[in-house]
């Protein structure tokens, strides 16, 4: 009997799926500062008469007209005898953003520890912002009266921030309506410095002292917590906003969930293997930027803090004005472990405006090299040079385009970065040259952990550019290579050594320029550390605890790599993939969603995750096609490729224990379906490159959630399984066995099937057959999509190919589009060596106008495909004019017509009448 029970048990064990190791990660209740602030919030919320202890001393106010800022002091009344001073500053920034910073006056405190600065960390913005933000020029101060003062700003004075002094509260109005309120619920809480002995007199009745000076979480017991409790927290209410988005990285829905009954969203860069979907647990990257949207208005909050952070979201429904309609408010509660309070409020008429406004602050995405928008083939691991070249040969053999092959950690000698395992890769430069023959690129992994006892880690210790433990010695922990030290990329001095390691002419990659870098494990991932990351009391450059700047560590690391590669390449754009990221990472790196699994739910969740990434201006994003852990079924693999071609960053990856699954492995018909999907990706590279160019100039998303296109349509606010890529509305199939999809068209604009040009029109669901070979794609009327239809082995080999323009007419017969062209790899575009072209169609005439740039592109236009029901009336000849006039033929077809080889030069304006 016992034996039988055991076997039953064993069977259950053996079939049990891998799941995240929850015990490794702190829940809010286990996290000192989160627990304390949730406790505080619940105490405050229960007491209807509660009055916030924070108020502005009006006598300290100072209006600095010249710099669009106001400074002063906030005091926290702990008791009649104890008042704590918090200097604050409010800035009105360009793009009508308003920033509030509250610091703690720690000048009087005595800190025994000489290794650390005693001030609160205030440098998150230094890394997040793209330079010092510019001040607004459209603002007006209304000085203090009746316990409040205000700032009116915006070109039409449409914005007003009203600051109440006692208690402290900020209300932001737009067009006279209250939109955002800070400290609405009196959750503002800044735990001021105190020693453990003095804690009692510094603690208010509504506060808890849970884990204030010691951490009893299993893996965090050694945390020295030198500063004791020092969290910063604030509540922000969005009035009438039912939906909020952003604050990645979480494997969760696009529209964020109410967390009152569950875990808050946690923002802490961690290596969370086998993460679960529908989860608020932290992941590899953090962008503490939230977008709220309602019909007519969008708003954003940028919580500029790099420490461990939790965000609670509560949605409350209110009756409005005694009318039957109700409105939902979203109330948020931001809790960070330490640092100053630094928040930027952004309001715009559309979500795109808010995203762009955030981009103006943190910088736009770097225009990537064209190759990096092609297909990336990765696996842990391609074993040796022969394997790498064999994979490349197979792509050509099976006529499948691909641009980049990747090498995971196994290429190194004993996981010592900057070395190669010589018996497997005897001559890396030879391999790189061979890859270059067909325009292929290699990306190799370089992580921040450096195995102890080899020349690189020795040098890092010698040069004093390693992360330090709380005693000021180089920190030693465990990661892939075993015992390691961590590169301190906060240290400006570290750049020089990093440059040295990446310089040309070494055994790393010779002088190759088709060699780029993958920065992984930069959360940092420390296998021996608490929550698989660094102990929080490590010391980074500048005498800060990593507790304060943990979430920007990953960014400093990939930025260092970027900087080194720009020096190595002289005039080529570096490509870097990072796993950990922070606001600002978009300027130098692409990201992916880390170690997902070969299951349908992970394919499904990848779409909202990538859309979220686009909402928060980290558009160069992707998920591992096929799923990292496990073995996908052939159907799942095929559907994943069909979805993956729409990831801005398109890479297949697999765990070392999973079987090979390159596109030819599943065989027919799967291989052909995958090839077809890849051909769509490659044909659309001109569109994708143009979208990236535009994002790099304006900060707009590359892939748009539906509500970015139809911000007035409430029904589109929660849709996360569809998106627009330029003028293409796509709904990838993410259900096993599905043969069709219901695609939602968010307005009455006409749409056409991508292949058949069949018409779909009318807001609402439309049925599309989607057998395994079909990707549901519709072309939105009124758009022009540039393509290169000749499929080559790699994107570089498409350089001389002609363009095809796909003109999808709207119901008025009009359409618009853009095309960006440059050399695809250098910085010469910054000097004008590019073409940015506007296309416009109306009244049966297509006009091409060079918007900017002066590249002498030799590419021809091969075809102009005009789609629309009115194309039936088009004749068989078109008149082209560019300097002189000539005619070219038109071939008509079902619902479309094709203008053949118009013979125009792209770098000059032209027009064609048809």
């Amino acid at each position, binding site marked *: 009997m*016992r*034996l039988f029970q*055991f*076997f039953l*048990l*064993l069977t259950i*064990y*053996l*079939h*049990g799926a*891998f799941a995240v*190791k929850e*015990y*490794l990660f702190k829940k809010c209740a286990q996290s000192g500062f989160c627990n304390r602030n949730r406790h505080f919030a619940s105490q405050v919320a229960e007491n209807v008469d509660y009055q916030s202890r924070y108020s502005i001393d009006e006598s300290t106010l100072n209006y600095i007209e010249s710099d669009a800022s106001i400074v002063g002091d906030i005091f926290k009344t702990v008791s009649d005898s104890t008042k704590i001073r918090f200097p604050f500053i409010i800035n009105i920034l360009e793009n009508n953003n308003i920033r509030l910073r509250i610091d703690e006056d720690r000048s009087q405190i005595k800190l025994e520890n000489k290794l650390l600065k005693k001030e609160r960390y205030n440098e998150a913005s230094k890394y997040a912002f793209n330079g010092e933000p510019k001040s607004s020029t459209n603002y007006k101060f209304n000085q203090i009266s009746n316990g409040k003062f205000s700032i009116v700003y915006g070109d039409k004075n449409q914005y007003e921030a009203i600051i109440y002094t006692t208690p402290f509260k900020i209300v932001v109005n737009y067009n006279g309506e209250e939109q955002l309120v800070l400290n609405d619920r009196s959750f503002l809480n800044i735990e001021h410095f105190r020693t453990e002995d003095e804690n009692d007199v510094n603690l208010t009745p509504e506060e808890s002292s849970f884990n204030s000076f010691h951490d009893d979480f299993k*893996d965090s017991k050694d945390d020295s917590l030198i500063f004791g409790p020092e969290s910063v927290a604030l509540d922000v209410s969005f009035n009438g906003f039912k939906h909020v988005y952003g604050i990645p990285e979480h494997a969760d829905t696009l529209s964020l969930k109410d967390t009152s009954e569950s875990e808050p969203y946690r923002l802490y860069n961690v*290596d969370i*293997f*086998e993460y679960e979907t529908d989860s608020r647990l932290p992941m590899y990257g953090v962008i503490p930027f939230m977008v709220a949207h309602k019909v007519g208005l969008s708003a954003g909050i940028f919580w500029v803090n790099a420490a461990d952070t939790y965000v609670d979201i509560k949605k409350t429904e209110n009756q409005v004005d005694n009318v039957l309609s109700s409105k939902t408010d979203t109330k948020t509660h931001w809790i960070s472990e330490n640092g100053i309070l630094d928040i930027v409020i952004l309001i715009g008429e559309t979500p795109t405006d808010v995203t762009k406004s955030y981009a103006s602050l943190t910088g736009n995405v770097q225009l990537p090299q064209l190759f990096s928008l092609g297909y990336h083939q990765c696996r842990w691991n391609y*074993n040796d040079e022969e394997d790498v070249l064999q994979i490349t040969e197979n792509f050509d053999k099976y*006529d499948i385009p691909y641009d980049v092959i990747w090498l995971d950690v196994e290429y190194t000698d004993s996981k010592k970065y900057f070395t190669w395992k010589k018996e497997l890769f005897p001559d890396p430069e030879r391999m790189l040259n061979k890859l270059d*023959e*067909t*325009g292929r690129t290699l990306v190799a992994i370089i992580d921040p952990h450096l195995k102890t006892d080899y020349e690189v880690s020795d040098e890092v210790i010698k040069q004093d550019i390693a992360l330090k433990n709380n005693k000021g010695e180089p920190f030693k*922990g*465990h990661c*892939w290579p*075993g*015992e390691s030290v961590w590169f301190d990329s906060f240290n400006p001095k570290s750049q020089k050594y990093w440059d040295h390691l990446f310089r040309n002419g070494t055994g790393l990659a010779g002088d190759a320029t088709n060699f780029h870098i993958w920065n992984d494990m930069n959360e940092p991932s420390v*296998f*021996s*550390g608490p929550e*698989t990351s660094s102990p929080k009391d490590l010391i980074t450059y500048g005498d800060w605890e990593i507790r304060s700047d943990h979430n920007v560590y990953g960014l400093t690391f990939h930025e260092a790599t970027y900087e080194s590669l720009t020096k190595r390449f002289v005039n080529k754009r570096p490509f870097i993939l990072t796993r950990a990221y922070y606001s600002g990472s978009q300027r130098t790196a692409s990201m992916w969603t880390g*170690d997902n699994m070969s299951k349908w739910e992970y394919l499904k969740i990848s779409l909202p995750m990538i859309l979220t990434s686009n909402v928060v201006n980290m558009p160069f994003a992707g998920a591992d096609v096929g799923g990292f*852990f496990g*073995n996908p079924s052939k159907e799942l693999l095929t559907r994943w490729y069909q979805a993956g071609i729409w990831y801005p960053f398109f890479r297949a990856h697999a*765990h*070392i*224990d999973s*079987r*090979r699954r390159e596109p030819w*492995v599943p065989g027919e018909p799967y291989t052909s379906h995958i090839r077809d999907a890849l051909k769509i990706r490659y044909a659309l590279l001109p569109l994708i490159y143009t979208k990236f160019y535009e994002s790099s100039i304006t900060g707009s998303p590359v892939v748009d959630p539906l509500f970015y296109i139809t911000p007035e349509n409430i029904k589109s606010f929660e849709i996360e399984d569809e998106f627009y890529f330029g003028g293409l509305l796509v709904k990838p199939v993410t259900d096993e066995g599905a043969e069709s999809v219901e695609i939602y068209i968010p307005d009455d604009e006409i749409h056409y099937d991508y292949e058949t040009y069949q018409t779909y029109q009318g807001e609402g669901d439309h049925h599309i057959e989607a057998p395994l070979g079909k990707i549901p794609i519709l072309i939105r009327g009124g758009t022009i999509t540039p393509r290169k239809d*000749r*499929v*080559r*082995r790699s994107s*570089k*080999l*498409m*350089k*001389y*190919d*002609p363009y095809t323009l796909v003109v999808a007419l709207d119901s008025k017969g009009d359409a618009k589009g853009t095309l960006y062209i440059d050399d695809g790899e250098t910085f010469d575009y910054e000097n004008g060596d590019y073409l940015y072209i506007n296309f416009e169609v109306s009244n049966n005439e297509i006009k091409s106008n060079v918007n900017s740039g002066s590249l002498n592109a030799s590419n*021809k236009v*091969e075809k102009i495909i005009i789609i629309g029901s009115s194309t039936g009336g088009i004749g068989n000849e078109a008149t082209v004019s560019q300097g002189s006039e000539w005619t070219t033929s038109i071939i008509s077809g079902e619902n479309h017509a094709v203008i*053949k*080889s118009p013979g125009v030069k792209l770098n000059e304006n032209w027009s064609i009448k048809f």
Partner: protein
Amino acid sequence: MKLINNIALATSLVSVVSAKVIGVAPNQQDLYKPDADGKWRCLGHPEIVLDFNQVNDDYCDCPDGSDEPGTSACPNGKFYCENKGHVPSYIKASQVNDGRCDYSQCCDGSDEWDTPVDCPSKCDEINKEYQKQLNLQEQTYKIGVEKLRKTINAANRIKDKLEKDIVSRGAIFDFLSRELNKKRQDLEILQAGELDPAVVKAKQDIKTSFENIKTELDQKFNSFTSSTYNLNNLSKILDALVQTFNENLKDAAVKDTVDNYLAHLEKYKEQYESEKSSTYQTFDTIKQSITDKLNSIDLDHGDTSAIKSKFDEISTTLSENLIKHDFINERAIDLENLLSHLINNYNPNFNDPNVKEAVNSFQDFSVNKESFKVPTEETISWFKEQTSKINELAKNVVSSNSGSVKPKLISSTNGPFWEKLKYRYRLLVNEFLGIESKEQYRIQPYQPKESKSDLEVQVEELNKDFNEQNNAIKSINEELSKNYGPHDILRPLKDIAIKGHIGEYDYDLFFTGNVHQKGHNNNIKIGSFESIEVKDISPKEHQLVLKYTNGARCWNGPLRQAVVNIDCGAENELIAVTEPEKCEYHFRVKSPIGCKLPESEEKSEQEIKNEVVHDEL
């Protein structure tokens, strides 16, 4: 290389001859001529009529791509490279004018005629290399085929030997069969009515029961040994884990497993230590002693009390060992629980190779192990029941014996009489075979009148030899009927293995035996030889496809199996191993046996065989 501007329109009667259409082979140029109206039809779609100047105008008009032989406009196009100084070839349209000199197909660089890229011809040097490769291939083939011939000869020799063996064994078989029949008939006559049928039956029953007990006990002890083996395997996995796991990776599951294993060792310390002591008797030793004890029981003539006491002794030993076995199972279950916890909870992202090894070993162990459960009570009562039955029967036999005058003369199988008898039988057989006795002297032929016991011995001996021959003939026939591929090529390779190291593993591939994957302290059977097929590639080349099935079961998957593709090579060489489907391995192998004989030799196979036979004579 610039396009020879093709303006050979029909209206111009002069220049038609010299104009070559780019991307078209000389013998196809005729297909690219305008008709009298200056029109041209798609080659595969004559219904589509184009102006001749639409040929190679960089716009694809023909669905078959025939209008764009020289450009990349049609996705399905082919571009002809003249490759002067080397072999002409075609290149895919998608490789034309893509900015890359595709020298491997187009050594003259003519594929890049419309891009700024300069591709000077490399045909001379490529041809040199090509010739070198050809020579090398030829040499490889020569060596390979020479070895192949030797293997074929060996195969023929073995087959021949087997066939001869069958002939001679057939004759012995016939002889033995005749003799056996004769003796049996004689014996039957003598036996008729001699003994009390009840006693005969009782003796028969005793014999049967006794054999049953022996077999059953044997099986039970084998189960005990297998359980011990299971426990040892589990202990080995955990011992290795405890010694090698990386303590710095804070993997709670690993830590739990290690702690619990150490607690387990402490809990069962006594048992583990006793098993390690020099006086500890393994189940196999005990089994042997029981077998000896059983064999020493004289059922026919021993006294029943002696039989009973021996059975009692055995019974005690059995129950002791049943308990011992229970303890072993208990420990094994405990260890399986530990390892199950580990595989379900360990952190694969830490990639500690030692943890992974433990996990893999356990997964392999658990899908391939057999569990042995021997219920104590039932077994003991079964044994008692069986032995008391024998005791009862033995009483009957003994009582009937006591009334009999039959001497104990024949009870010993070692007496000189038996020796003589056997010797005489041997002579009989040898005489038939024409084998001279090697012995220096001959005992005078001993010719007693054949008694019953004489005949019994002869029948027994004859029967033994008869079965032996019968089985031998069967197995030779089986061997001969096996498909060993063309020319029986695998027949001589019975004990030949290809060994190689690929990735993390060592592989042993016995051509007609098993394929094993070794590494991480594991030796996993991938499969046993199942079949061979020949896949023709060209008149001069073929590939052998060998299948191996029935390997060890995979974790959450089927039994492992392998397909081995063998191409021509000078040596046996393992080139690659992949696992395209779960637990389905593909091996690429080079071997002389993958070479194809020149066609002229294929036909004369029979002659070769004859030659071999001749050689041996």
